[in-house]
């Protein structure tokens, strides 16, 4: 009797322990989980993973137009004709580049013949441009016979201000050949022209620098890629006139007019690329960081190229940061040396004077030294009023601006004549090249930003992901996909537009302050709060469960023993 009661009592105790454990597991744990979890919105992880493998396909349309006298009648019959040139490069294991040029061959229309009959190449270029405007990213090559007087002697190729080039072929090249043979002969020449006018492999790989680690072999392309500013939706251009000696020189510069005449046309042309804003200031008592040495032979002060690196820092403190925006700033400084240290010349590494008396600093801006010593005699009364010749200054600054924006001015291959860039300072095909590399750069930067953000969020579970971040990330991902598709379709303008959108969205998501809120909530504090409650509650449950398990095992063994 007594034994039975104790058995049923024990059974009841076990049931109670089990049910408490069940309540804890079914109600307690989910409740605790729900109330302490961090909010993490859904991110398109699979699409982001696809982005880490990037296959960029750049394609451009090229027209090759044969003028009268370049083709025999039977050759003409085969035209028009379309060929595709394909190239593929694997930059690294995750990035593949493919270039396609779709080349259309045709004969010239009567109007074009007329245009090509102009006396000079520049005029022909202009009237060809008037006839038809080729879309952004495409180019047209006109093939003219040897007898044409359009190009001077020993010039094989003329590259115009727009998207046209004029190519001269020799008589022996075309004599007695089929069209296919002729085209095969022409092909390397056209390829060379396209290297200059359209995207080139070196440019595109330089633009990928954010994504692909450089092989240190190509130092030249490295310096080039380090010089230009990285892609940004906007830039602030600041012109500063440094006057270290206001007691001797009273400087006047017509910056408003100069900006209007020299800089604004260039920036208007660049406006599809980014927004530019311009301001200017005058800084007095602003000194350079180095003391130039006096050279007795020259009767002048000399600033060596080695010491230029130390010039900028003390000036920079005076320049002031831009209060109104967070875009990168391009600084252009005009330094008028003080009366005691004039004239001042900059010498390069070979101890030769730099003709422009200016230098630029990569991704920062340019400095020009403007000597005024010869503008007044020794008996002049101080302070001297000096008007600065803005045409000279702005010519130098415009060249520097071209370099800093990312326009390469490498010498053209032999036999090429490149038209001077004119009043705008920028040819259409140069803009195209820049747009190609900027689109690729934006896509590369955005993909690295998104993938690293996704990686970070994946690794650290404490970060809260709000809905707006998720939205930014997905819009960045869609824009990347659209930009890649537009590049493949050859729509350069749209590709750049989408790539700008993606970079904006991805940066916004990456730098959102809400990501930081719970990032540093330490684990030890969490445990310090949990332990006083969880330890005394869980230990008895666990112990009784263990005890039950061991008892069940013992009984099972006993049963086995009985069976045997």
């Amino acid at each position, binding site marked *: 009797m007594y034994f039975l009661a104790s058995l049923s009592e024990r059974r009841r105790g076990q049931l109670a*322990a089990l049910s408490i454990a069940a309540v804890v597991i079914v109600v307690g744990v989910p409740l605790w989980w729900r109330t302490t979890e961090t909010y993490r919105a859904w991110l398109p992880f699979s699409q982001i993973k696809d982005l880490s493998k990037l296959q960029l396909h750049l394609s451009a349309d090229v027209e090759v137009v044969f003028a009268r006298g370049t083709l025999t009648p039977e050759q003409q019959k085969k035209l028009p004709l379309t060929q595709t040139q394909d190239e593929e490069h694997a930059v690294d294991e995750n990035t593949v580049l493919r270039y396609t040029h779709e080349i259309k061959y045709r004969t010239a229309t009567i109007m074009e013949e007329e245009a090509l009959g102009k006396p000079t190449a520049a005029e022909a270029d202009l009237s060809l441009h008037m006839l038809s405007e080729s879309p952004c990213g495409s180019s047209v090559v006109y093939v003219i016979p040897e007898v044409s007087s359009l190009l001077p002697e020993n010039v094989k190729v003329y590259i115009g201000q727009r998207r046209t080039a004029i190519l001269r072929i020799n008589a022996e090249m075309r004599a007695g050949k089929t069209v296919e043979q002729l085209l095969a002969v022409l092909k390397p020449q056209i390829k060379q022209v396209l290297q200059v006018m359209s995207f080139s492999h070196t440019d595109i790989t330089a633009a990928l620098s954010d994504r692909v680690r450089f092989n240190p072999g190509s130092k030249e392309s490295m310096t080039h890629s380090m010089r230009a500013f990285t892609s940004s939706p906007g830039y602030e251009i600041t012109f500063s006139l440094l006057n270290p000696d206001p007691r001797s020189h009273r400087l006047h510069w017509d910056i408003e007019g100069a900006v209007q005449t020299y800089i604004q046309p260039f920036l208007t042309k660049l406006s599809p690329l980014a927004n530019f804003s*311009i301001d*200017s200031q005058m800084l007095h*008592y602003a000194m350079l960081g180095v003391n130039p040495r006096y050279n007795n032979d020259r009767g002048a002060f000399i600033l060596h190229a080695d010491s230029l690196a130390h010039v900028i820092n003390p000036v920079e403190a005076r320049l002031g940061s831009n*209060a109104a925006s967070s875009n990168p700033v391009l600084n252009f400084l005009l330094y008028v040396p003080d009366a005691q240290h004039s004239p001042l010349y900059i010498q390069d590494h070979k101890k030769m004077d730099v003709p422009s008396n200016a230098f630029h600093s990569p991704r920062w801006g340019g400095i020009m030294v403007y000597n005024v010593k010869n503008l007044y005699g020794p008996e002049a009364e101080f*302070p001297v009023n000096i008007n600065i010749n803005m045409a000279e200054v702005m010519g130098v600054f415009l060249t520097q601006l071209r370099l800093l924006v990312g326009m390469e001015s490498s010498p053209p291959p032999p036999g090429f004549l490149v038209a001077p860039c004119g009043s705008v300072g920028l040819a259409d095909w140069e803009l195209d090249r820049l747009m190609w590399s900027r689109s690729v750069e934006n896509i590369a930067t955005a993909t690295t930003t998104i993938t690293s953000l996704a990686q970070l969020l994946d690794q650290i579970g404490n970060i809260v992901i709000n809905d707006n971040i998720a939205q930014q990330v997905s819009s960045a991902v869609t824009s990347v996909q659209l930009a890649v598709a537009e590049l493949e379709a050859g729509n350069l303008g749209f590709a750049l537009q989408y790539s700008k959108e993606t970079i904006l969205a991805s940066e916004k998501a990456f730098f959102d302050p809400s990501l930081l809120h719970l990032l540093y909530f330490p684990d030890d504090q969490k445990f310090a*709060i949990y332990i*006083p*409650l969880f*330890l005394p509650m869980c230990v008895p449950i666990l112990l009784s469960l263990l005890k039950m398990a061991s008892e069940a095992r013992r009984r099972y063994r006993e049963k086995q023993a009985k069976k045997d």
Partner: protein
Amino acid sequence: MAAHRCRYLACLLLLFLSVILVTMSQETTLGHEQHELVIRPLHSGDIYASFQFRTVWETDFMKGNKVSHYRLFPKSLGQVISKFSVRELHISFTQGYWRTMQWGQPFIPSPPGAELWVWFQDSVTDVDATWKELTNVLSGIFCASLNFIDSTNTLQPSASFKPLGIGNGTTDHRFLRYATLPREIVCTENLTPWKKLLPCGSKAGLAVLLKSEKLFHSSFHSQSVHIRPVCQDRQCKSSSWELRQALNVVFDLHTSGQSKREWSLFKMFSRTLTEACPLASSSKIYIDVTDNPQEEQFELSPATPLLSQAVVLGDRRTFSVYDLTQQVTFGTVRSLNLMIRWKSSEGDMLRPLLHAERYVTGYGLQTGEIHTLMYNNHPFRSFPVLLLDSVPWYLRLYIHTLKVISKGKDNNPSYIHYQPSKDRERPHLLEMLLQLPPHSVTEVTVQFERALLKWTEYTPDPNHGFYVGSSVISSLVPSTVAMETNITMEQPLFSSFFPCKEESSYFARVYTEPLLVNLPTPDFSMPYNVICLTCTVVAVGYGSLYNLLTRSFQVEEPNPGLAKRIANVIRRMRGVPPL
């Protein structure tokens, strides 16, 4: 006496001539830059030095055209004005409290800590967002913690802060924001960016005197920047921006002078002057010699023939003027080191016509009472004052206990603007227009209750207390002499900050002391203690319940008592059977 007057007349004539010279030179050269230093020996024996640098930028800003080319005007401030459509901006950083009782009125008053008030142009649609962004940008420019300005310490005073520049029309206080940070500590890192705004920096002119190790070794230091639109000419057809940078400092001579009452530029700033800033069209030092017409109080060297009179703060003062643009000023040594040697050591106490003080009474950590005392020391005239009080939300004002008493009688305010606070959103705002009877003290009292904050809202050192910003008292004080009301007239900078509309009174602004109030402060380890304690209680209860439910209980043989057990042990030793 007659000879005396004659001398003044001659001096005035001289001054007039120099004024004409100045205006002419302004038209031919840059001419938009004026520098000035006023030195006033105070009755307490201290020295008050006030620098003012004024830059005028002739540009038509109201039409909204984008201006981006800067010459004398600093680019950083210009960008701020045009980006945020600011019409007027006044910012001041002050270390120490201006003792009106001992020192009289300052030329540009400012409360302890940081003060910022901005009038926006009426084209701004979202004023609060613009204000927030502006404070963040300004905190970057001045290296100050202005980013702590948020809606809980921002006010929209309805009457106390009117635009000081030309503004014609819109004085709708929707476009005004006012905030103070009484706790802000001003130091070198605020002075450096302030000096950078000057066209000559600290390289030439009066600004070479601004050495931080001397300036901050003083009883009072205040630096401010004021931007406002002003008239370009007498007809006021076109307007231009005026930037005034002011720096006021009071040196305590008793402690630094080793009991000798002697003072010089070199002793005060550890620098002497050698030249004026070449960009400045005028650069002058004024020394207040009103109390010293016959050199009976102190001796000034080198002496200057140039005297000037100006009506400032309702009083006609006489100044010795040193014009730094003239080579003569620097003499043969090419360096100017002004020196004052006192003859008598006693100065009589000054009685300012208006001054104020404020304190908190009460005990315990639940309620308290704020007292604001305003003194009118004029023997026979009463004048109106505008009192602006801003109290943070965590002091809950009982506005029904508001009492205004002067001379033992209730003083009914003729205008009251009260905006109650909202917890964690906005502070209390109380503005009153009061008439102060002659020769009286007016006391404003109001009771408050201290709120309990959330534990994340306490500052890192909550037992230090919480600051409540100064009250602002703006008033038109009767002046003893006629004021100059033509604001376009050429006059010294120190007398032309507040525009004057009336001849018989002058505008004065007085700030009271900021208050330091203790709030009920919990022990900050408390949350963890509470967690531990409740968890332990829950665990004990839960443990016994769990035991009751899961253990099985059996009746056990009752244990023999302790005495019996001991007895049994003894019995066993004796070999006797146990009990």
